[in-house]
């Protein structure tokens, strides 16, 4: 991460703009224990109350790291029921990084956020249709399979 991803200009700008970064050695007590860190690199995205919303273990190249961050920020908003804000970040992810590993989950979460904010079930069916069309090998397609019946 230090050699490849963190020096990347886009990554630096994104983190400075959207997050408060904190770098901690993996054996620092009590935080490493509190966060149950067993391997590095581990990235955790928390809300300002310190609650964890998203996590990844292992190396990520810049083209995967920024979408991971976007999804994490979206999850912070989603979990707090700020669905419009969550949708904004998910749309950014899908527009800028449609081939990233985070993209299929973002399609799913965006549809759920739209459903929860409107009560209209159409976005749930659209989750399945878009995943089937754009990400047919994704595990998220299986998770969305009940929505095809809507």
């Amino acid at each position: 991460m230090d050699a490849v991803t963190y020096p990347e200009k886009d990554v630096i700008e994104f983190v400075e703009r959207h997050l408060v970064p904190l770098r901690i050695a993996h054996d620092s007590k009590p935080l490493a224990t509190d966060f149950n860190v067993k391997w590095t690199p581990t990235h955790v995205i928390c809300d300002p109350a310190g609650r964890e919303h998203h996590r990844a273990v292992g190396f990520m190249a810049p083209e995967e790291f920024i979408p991971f961050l976007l999804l994490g920020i979206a999850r912070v908003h989603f979990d707090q029921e700020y669905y419009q804000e969550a949708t904004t970040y998910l749309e950014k992810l899908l527009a800028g990084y449609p081939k990233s590993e985070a993209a299929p989950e973002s399609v799913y979460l965006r549809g759920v956020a739209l459903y929860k904010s409107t009560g209209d079930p159409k976005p749930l069916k659209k989750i399945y249709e878009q995943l089937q069309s754009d990400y047919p090998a994704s595990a998220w397609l299986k998770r969305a399979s009940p929505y095809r019946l809507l």
Partner: protein
Amino acid sequence: MPEAISWEKTMKRALERAGAENKPVLVFFHNPA
């Protein structure tokens, strides 16, 4: 001898800043070795 870093205080400061700036916190656990 330098004073040991208090990671709890560092985290607390990061969370306070996150609240003030309305941003999430990205915690990066790394192996400095």
